[in-house]
């Protein structure tokens, strides 16, 4: 099998340039590529267009890149948790394209699957539908949504093998698989990197064919955004 291993986040990200469009997996702070985000801060690339469901919090996740003014435009579905984001957006420093969450996921998958456009009912009759073609199927109006592409997709998986096959854990899967399919180049950072054949071929969530570079992340903070618990009775 084809070997996709690179040594580190530094090695994986070294060709990322200012002005590029980058997809980043994760939902909230869950399943985000922490090591590559830190590397992007170090690289000081800017004018980035970032496609990510959320924008992190002020001091973690994509919030880091916002703090350092490296993001020109965010493409997201929900950005409610980030004060710096809201400030930059309301002041006009930051362009924002808000997309329904399901359309965001499907538009990423579509790019990866060679589907240039599809119809969805989500957003019809709202700002999201403005300027988009409307077509009625089975009596119900739908809008045409196009595939979302990116120069790089950066995803985070639980386990991966050297050929790029990935397995995710729990709800940390979220946007990672669809974005992994969509990147012109896809980087996967994983908690555990194993030899080809160590993962059960029935149980792989994203086949390595979608991955160009894979490495074991140096460390994971995995910060919890809303720690909610119950008391033992």
């Amino acid at each position: 099998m084809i070997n996709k291993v690179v040594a580190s986040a530094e090695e994986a990200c070294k060709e990322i340039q200012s002005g590029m469009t980058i997809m980043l997996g994760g939902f909230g702070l869950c399943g985000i590529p922490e090591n590559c985000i830190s590397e992007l801060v170090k690289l000081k690339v800017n004018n980035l267009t970032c496609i990510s469901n959320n924008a992190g919090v002020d001091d973690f996740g994509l919030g880091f890149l916002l703090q350092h003014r490296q993001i020109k435009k965010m493409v997201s579905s929900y950005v409610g948790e980030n004060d710096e984001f809201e400030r930059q957006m309301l002041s006009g420093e930051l362009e924002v394209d808000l997309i329904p969450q399901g359309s965001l996921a499907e538009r990423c998958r579509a790019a990866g699957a060679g589907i240039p456009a599809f119809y969805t009912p989500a957003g019809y009759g709202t700002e999201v539908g403005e300027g988009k073609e409307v077509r009625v199927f089975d009596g119900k109006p739908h809008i045409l949504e196009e595939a979302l592409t990116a120069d790089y997709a950066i995803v985070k998986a639980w386990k991966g093998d050297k050929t790029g096959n990935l397995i995710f854990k729990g709800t940390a899967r979220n946007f990672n698989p669809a974005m992994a399919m969509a990147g012109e180049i896809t980087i996967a950072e994983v908690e555990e990197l194993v030899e080809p054949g160590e993962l059960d071929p029935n149980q792989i969530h994203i086949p390595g064919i979608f991955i160009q570079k894979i490495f074991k992340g140096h460390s994971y903070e995995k910060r919890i955004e809303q720690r909610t618990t119950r008391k033992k009775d």
Partner: protein
Amino acid sequence: MALDKNGIAKRIAQELQDRWYVNLGIGIPTLVANHIPEEISVDFQSENGILGMGPFPFEGEEDADLINAGKQTITAVPGAVYFDSATSFAMIRGQHVQLTVLGAMEVSENGDIANWKIPGKMVKGMGGAMDLVASADNIIVAMMHTNKRGESKLLKQCSLPLTGVGCVKKIVTNLAVLDVTKEGFKLIERAPGVSVEEIKKATEGKLIIEGDIPEMNI
């Protein structure tokens, strides 16, 4: 007496039917899970990628890799399953989820809903709400009848940017249960001790009152 948030959730729980898959939004809708009648079996979907969501974890047992769409730590029940976002919205858009309960800032008498944006002010984003309201057959809105300034949230027409058009089927507020019909908001039940007059006063959109309006039984 007007209901509190838990009361609204309790009343909505009565709408759930056996063998339904249900998506609960953030806020009041989340509380619905605490009031499911024991005799029915329903499963909760959270659009970030879990079916079979259980209660919050015990202290010390939180898992950063296991959250709901509100970013809260959760647990999974036996038989639960995790999936990716594209599959999650395949379930939603494909109408495999039987009921969506979500909050709103405004609902209009024709069933339009606004809950994601206040121009020039609040920027949150629609999250999964636009997909949910455009797809679900059953959409119940859980909200206060009026806003903080005492203005009605049940309007002739929404003033805020829409989340979806003509999609809300039922509204449960602190004052009443209302069906959204072709003719307008049809009053179904009053909160215990709340008069039809009070509901009339708090409702800007067209309110249809036919016969005696019973009190909720909660």
